[in-house]
């Protein structure tokens, strides 16, 4: 099977996923005993206004009719109207998603190389000082609440040292191409914005990366330990190769598969779930938007965020699967 055929087939599978996810979120929002029309109209709105909203958004229709309106909208780009933002959901997502995407990219950019490196060192120096240190570091990452780490970083680097800012994304670059501030500022040669945006992303991306970094470290360590005692590592050493080549060329590539799985899922997870980090650092991303939508019963927004996350998960898994096949020739796509 050719790569593009495989990708096309996997993307086709998105359809049932979209339908499944919307069905579930739709049903949940329908059975929750709250009156969205009342919430959107406001506490003091007259009953006639509430009724008008009901009419306008088909809230009086049977649930399957409502679902029909929604799902046809999803496929035609109309993801509903976000009441908390007073504009279409699709527009909100287009605004907030790049912010989250940028933050996640940076967090993963920190977590993956650092995690793999620490995991390798840990495995190679098993039960020695570097291993103990890296395990303590990883264990704190897994067990430390993310908001606490965020607050500590703000306290130290913003309040006491004043090195980094602690809220927002910084100055918007002169031109918007991708919605990723740092990339855009480079593209529009806006160095002032570039430095400012870079400074702004450091603390939140470190905060966001720590938990994932810890998981990747632990995963890499354990799979490296597994691989390092296999026969082909002995073969590689018997060939006269240096430790560096044995570890990074012969062992690591084999040990990366579980790490890759974890990274893919973490990446997708961070894209949709950076709620705490985004809230602490006032980062205008999807997590904050989701939080706001939930607290204001903004159902179209909740469903929009959920749907986007589902799509991201599917695509992240697809990328991970393609990378499996690249890393390990025993894995064939589509079999």
């Amino acid at each position: 099977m050719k790569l593009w055929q495989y990708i096309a087939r996997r993307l086709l599978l998105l359809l049932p996923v979209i339908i499944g996810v919307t069905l579930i979120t739709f049903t949940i929002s329908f059975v929750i005993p709250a009156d969205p029309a009342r919430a959107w109209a406001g506490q003091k709105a007259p009953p006639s206004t509430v009724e008008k909203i009901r009419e306008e958004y088909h809230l009086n229709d049977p649930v399957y009719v409502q679902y029909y309106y929604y799902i046809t909208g999803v496929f035609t780009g109309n993801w509903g109207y976000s009441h908390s933002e007073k504009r279409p959901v699709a527009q909100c997502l287009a605004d907030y998603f790049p912010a989250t995407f940028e933050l996640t990219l940076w967090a993963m950019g920190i977590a993956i190389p650092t995690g793999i490196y620490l995991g390798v060192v840990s495995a190679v120096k098993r039960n020695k000082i570097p291993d103990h240190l890296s395990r303590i570091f990883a264990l704190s990452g897994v067990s430390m609440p993310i908001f606490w780490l965020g607050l500590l970083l703000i306290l130290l680097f913003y309040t006491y040292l004043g090195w980094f800012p602690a809220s927002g994304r910084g100055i918007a670059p002169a031109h918007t191409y991708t919605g990723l501030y740092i990339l855009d500022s480079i593209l529009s040669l806006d160095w002032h914005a570039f430095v400012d945006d870079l400074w702004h992303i450091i603390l939140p991306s470190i905060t966001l990366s720590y938990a994932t970094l810890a998981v990747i470290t632990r995963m890499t360590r354990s799979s490296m330990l597994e691989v390092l005692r296999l026969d082909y590592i002995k073969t590689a050493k018997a060939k006269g190769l240096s430790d560096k080549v044995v570890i990074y060329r012969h062992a690591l590539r084999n040990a990366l598969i579980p790490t890759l799985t974890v990274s893919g899922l973490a990446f997708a997870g961070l894209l949709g779930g950076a709620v705490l980090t985004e809230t602490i650092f006032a980062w205008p991303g999807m997590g904050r938007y989701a939080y706001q939508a939930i607290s204001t019963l903004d159902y179209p927004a909740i469903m929009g965020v959920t749907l986007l996350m589902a799509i991201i998960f599917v695509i992240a898994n697809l990328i991970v699967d393609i990378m499996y096949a690249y890393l390990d020739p025993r894995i064939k796509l589509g079999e």
Partner: protein
Amino acid sequence: MDDEILLKVEDLHTYFYTYEGVVKAVDGVSFFVKKGEIFGLVGETGCGKSVTALSIIGLIDDPGKIVSGKIIFQGKNLRELPEEEMRKIRGKGISMIFQEPMTALNPVYTIGDQILEIILLHKYGIENIKKAPKELKNKERKRVIEMLRLVRMPDPERAIDSYPHELSGGMRQRAMIAMMLATEPSLLIADEPTTALDVTVQAQILNILLDMRDKLGISIILITHDLSVVADVCDRVAVMYAGNIVEMADVYTIFKHPVHPYTRGLMQAIPSIAEKKEELKYIKGSVPNLIYPPSGCRFHPRCEYAQDICKKERPKLVEIEPGHYVACHFAKEFFEKEKRAEGESNE
């Protein structure tokens, strides 16, 4: 005589420091390997054959350690060489192949790349084959195919670009041999190279090893627990028991006139079609725990001839006739008895 000797191991002790205690896996092993010969190292599982081999090539992992002894290869004591120098000997001077061809090749690289790697490393000092110039790779690719042909790999042009999982066990072992001989080492250590293979494939692989010895003039240390393999291909044999060598001689002597009670027990345990017995013979008892090995001769708890001295003193490996070494307090007696018995049967 001495210039014929390629490798000489003297009083080698390799211990493993585990939580349960110190495992004396190899405890005073001495032997030598001549140029161009196939030297068999025989013994039961866990007797220290593989540890001896790994000690020679310097790949004893934690918690293991070579405690004392000399490993003299081509006149140099390998134990005194810095790791840097030792790496140059591994794969170039001494190569090693392992028991499990299924797991001894790296699953994520092609056979060709894995063979190319060792050639580039020792011929040009290039460690990363990705950084090697293209022309060099193309040139050496021919050498890889030639090596694969030499080990009688079917369809070498195709095999070179195959991944290990696409080949059968026998083909993988051929690839392994091709890889480890591509640099034309002087000594190949083959650790149970045929144990995991079918009998028919086993014979093919052994023939390839014999062939390689003849064509490349290498010496081979063949580690095995299979006496029929030893009889087939080895020139000289050392029998190991519980971390010691108990007897060493040429293959004819070992099979025809074994002296040590353990060797004799082994020989009697070989099933024979000629004389069908009611019950197969075996050596009573089991291999001792190497953390608390028996005092004196390590075989004494299982030996039917054991005397007081066997419990107190460790017998030394002594030459009882030219080229025939035995570690037993009663070696001389057994040897003479054997000689007499042979004399009688000849009359």
